[in-house]
C-alpha cells in the first residue's frame, strides 16, 4: 500500500483557507473601495462647505475692493496644513487675493475654474461662486492636497490587513479544528484498510461512527470485511477438507501401488522357479534325447527352450523394474563421461562385425545414484545400437548441454527411428513400436529409464521419424 503524498486533513485545511482568504480579501477590497469613495465624497463636501463659508466672509471685501481683507479671510486657511492654495476672483474673473498671500504665479489658475470640484493627481480643487443678495461678486477657488485621503486609505489598509490576518489566523485555527471531524473517520478507515491489506487480517473492523457518507462507507467497509472473513474461513475449511481427501486418496493409492508392486514382484519371483524347471528339463531333454527325436520334435524343443529363455529375461527385467521403484537412492557425484566410456566399452562386443561410429561430446559430472544412472545409459545406448542395426554405417552421438537450470543429455542414432505420433508411448512398460521379430527386447528398458530419471527429478522425451533416426533426451536438475 503506497504512502499518501498528502493528507486529507491538509487538503481540507487548504480548501477552507483558500475560501476564507479569498472571501476576506474580496471583502477587504470592497470595504476599502467603498470607504475610499465615501471619503472622497466627504472631502469634496467639506471643501465645498469651506468654500461657501469663505465666500460669505469675503463678499464685502470684493464689493468694497479690499484685497487686504480678502487676503486676511483666506489667511485663516493657514490653520489647516492640507490646504495648499486658494484664490478669490472678482466679478471679471481677475485674481483678487490668493493664499498663500505671496503665491507664485501659476500656483492658482489665472482664470476661475468652472463651478464644481476636480480631482487631480495629488489634489482636490473646488470652485464656487461668491454671491451677495443674489448678485455674483466673484469666484472662490480652494485647493487641498490628498493627505487626508491618503491617511484614510493607509488607515483602512492597516485595519483591513489586521482584520484579514486576524481572520486568517482564526480561520486556520477553526479549519484545523473542524477538519478533524471530517478527516479522523477517514484516517481511521484508511488505517483499517492498511492493516487489512498489509496483514491480511480480515478480523479488524473500522467501527468508525459518523452521520455522513464516511459513516456509510465505514459501515459498508465493515460489512465487506465481514463477508471476506466469512468466505475466507469457508475457503480455508474447503481447502483443508480437500487436502485431507487428497492425502487420503494418495495414501490409498500408495498403498494399492505398493500392494501391486509387491504382488508383481512375488509373482515374477515365484514364476522363476517353475521356469527354471522347464528350462532345466528342456536342457536335459536336449542333451539326452535330441538326436533320437525327429526333425519336427527337435524344432519344438528348440522353440520351447527359446521361449523359456525369453520368459526368463522378461521376468528378470520386471524384477529390475520393480527394484528401481523400491530401492533407496544414494546420490553421489557421477562422472557421466567415464561412465559413458565404460558402457560403450561393454557394448562393443554386441556390435562386433558392424560398422559403428561412436561420437561422445564433453559430458559433465552430475549428482545421482551411480548404478541407476548407469542403467539409464546402458538402456539408451543399447537401444541406439539395436535400432541402428539395419544401417550400414551406424553413428551414435552422445551429447549434453545446460539449459533452464537442468542438464539435458541426448543420445542420437541414425537408425530406423519411429513414428512421432507414437512418441508418447515409447516410455511405457511393455510398449513396443517394433515387432519383437525385428528387434529383440522386453519393452521395459525405456520404462526403467523414465522411472529412474523421474526419481532424480528430471524428465525424458524423444524426437525422431521413421527411417530418420531417433534422439532420446533425459534431463537432470543441476
Amino acid at each position, binding site marked *: 500500500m503506497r504512502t499518501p503524498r498528502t493528507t486529507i486533513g491538509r487538503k481540507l485545511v487548504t480548501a477552507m483557507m483558500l475560501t476564507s482568504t479569498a472571501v476576506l480579501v474580496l471583502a477587504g477590497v470592497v470595504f476599502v473601495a467603498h470607504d475610499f469613495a465615501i471619503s472622497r465624497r466627504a472631502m469634496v463636501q467639506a471643501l465645498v462647505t469651506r468654500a461657501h463659508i469663505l465666500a460669505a466672509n469675503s463678499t*464685502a471685501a470684493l*464689493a*468694497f*475692493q*479690499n484685497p487686504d481683507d480678502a487676503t486676511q479671510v483666506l489667511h485663516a486657511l493657514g490653520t489647516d496644513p492640507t490646504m495648499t492654495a486658494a484664490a478669490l476672483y472678482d466679478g*471679471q474673473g*481677475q485674481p483678487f487675493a490668493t493664499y498663500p498671500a505671496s503665491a507664485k504665479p501659476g500656483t492658482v489658475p489665472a482664470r476661475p475654474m468652472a463651478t464644481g470640484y476636480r480631482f487631480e493627481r495629488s489634489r482636490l480643487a473646488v470652485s464656487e461662486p461668491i454671491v451677495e*443678495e443674489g*448678485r455674483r461678486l466673484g469666484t472662490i477657488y480652494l485647493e487641498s492636497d490628498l493627505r487626508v485621503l491618503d491617511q484614510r486609505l493607509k488607515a483602512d489598509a492597516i485595519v483591513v490587513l489586521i482584520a484579514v490576518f486576524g481572520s486568517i489566523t482564526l480561520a486556520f485555527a477553526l479549519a484545523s479544528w473542524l477538519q478533524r471531524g471530517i478527516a479522523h473517520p477517514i484516517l481511521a478507515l484508511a488505517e483499517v484498510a492498511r492493516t487489512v491489506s498489509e496483514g491480511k487480517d480480515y478480523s479488524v473492523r473500522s467501527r468508525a461512527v459518523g452521520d455522513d457518507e464516511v459513516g456509510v462507507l465505514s459501515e459498508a467497509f465493515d460489512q465487506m470485511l465481514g463477508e471476506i472473513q466469512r468466505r475466507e474461513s469457508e475457503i480455508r475449511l474447503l481447502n483443508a477438507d480437500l487436502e485431507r481427501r487428497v492425502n487420503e486418496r494418495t495414501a490409498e493409492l500408495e498403498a494399492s501401488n505398493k500392494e501391486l508392486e509387491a504382488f508383481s514382484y512375488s509373482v515374477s519371483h515365484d514364476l522363476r522357479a517353475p521356469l527354471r524347471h522347464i528350462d532345466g528339463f528342456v536342457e536335459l531333454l536336449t542333451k539326452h534325447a535330441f538326436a533320437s527325436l525327429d526333425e519336427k520334435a527337435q524344432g519344438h524343443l528348440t522353440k520351447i527352450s527359446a521361449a523359456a529363455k525369453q520368459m526368463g529375461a522378461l521376468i528378470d527385467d520386471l524384477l529390475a523394474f520393480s527394484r528401481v521403484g523400491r530401492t533407496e537412492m544414494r546420490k553421489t557425484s557421477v562422472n557421466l563421461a567415464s561412465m559413458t566410456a565404460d558402457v560403450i566399452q561393454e557394448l562393443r562386443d554386441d556390435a562386433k562385425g558392424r560398422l559403428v561410429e561412436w561420437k561422445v561430446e564433453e559430458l559433465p559430472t552430475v549428482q545421482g545414484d551411480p548404478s541407476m544412472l548407469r542403467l539409464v545409459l546402458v538402456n539408451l545406448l543399447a537401444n541406439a545400437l539395436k535400432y541402428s542395426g539395419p544401417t550400414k554405417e551406424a553413428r551414435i552421438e552422445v551429447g549434453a548441454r545446460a539449459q533452464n537450470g537442468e542438464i539435458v543429455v541426448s543420445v542420437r542414432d541414425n537408425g530406423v527411428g519411429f513414428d512421432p505420433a507414437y512418441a508418447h508411448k515409447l516410455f511405457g512398460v511393455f510398449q513396443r513400436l517394433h515387432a519383437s521379430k525385428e528387434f529383440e527386447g522386453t519393452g521395459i528398458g525405456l520404462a526403467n529409464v523414465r522411472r529412474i530419471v523421474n526419481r532424480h527429478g528430471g524428465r525424458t522425451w524423444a524426437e525422431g521419424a521413421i527411417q530418420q533416426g531417433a534422439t532420446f533426451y533425459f534431463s537432470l536438475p543441476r
Partner: protein
Amino acid sequence: MVLARRASCLALLLLLAAAPSWAGAKLTHEYDLKATFLFHFAQFVQWPPEALPEKNTPLTIGILGEDPFGKSLDEIVANESVGGHKLRVRRFQRVSQADSCHILFISSSEMGRMGEVLSHVNRRSILTVGETKDFAQRSGIIGFIVAEKRLRLAVNLAAANAARLTISSKLLRQSEIVGPVRVQE
C-alpha cells in the same frame, strides 16, 4: 439690455481694478467706483422696517447737490433690487426733498451747508454718505477716503445707531470706525 449694461459696468470695474490705471493720489474713474460702493451699501446695510414698509417700496439712492456720477450710478442700479426692493436713483437740490431717501450721497457742492443738511436728516433712517473722513466724524454716517490709490470708508457707528441703521459687520471690516469723540484728535 440688462446684460449689456451689466457688462459695461463690469468692464468699468475691470478698468478700475487694474492697478496701473490708479495714478497718483487721485483715483481715475473715482466716481464710477463711488457709484458701485453706493450700490453695495444697499446690500450691506439694513433699514428699520418702517423705512421700507412694503415689499414693493423702492430703495432710493439720493444725490444731493451737484451730480458727480454722470450716467454711471443709473447704469449700475438699473434693474437691480435688494431684498426684493427695486433700486432707484433720485437727484435733489435741497435736503428737505430728500426725506424719502434710504441712501443719500451729499455732494461736495453742499459742503457749505453741511450743518443744515445733517441736522435735517438727523434721526431719520437715511444712510448719509459724504466725500470726506471729516464728514463721518461730523455725524455723517459714511465718508469716502481716498488713500494709497484706494477708496476706503470711514463709518460713524454712533450716527448709524442714531439713524437705526444696522451696518453689516462685513462692511465694518472694510471700514475705519470714526466718531464724534475723535473730532478733537
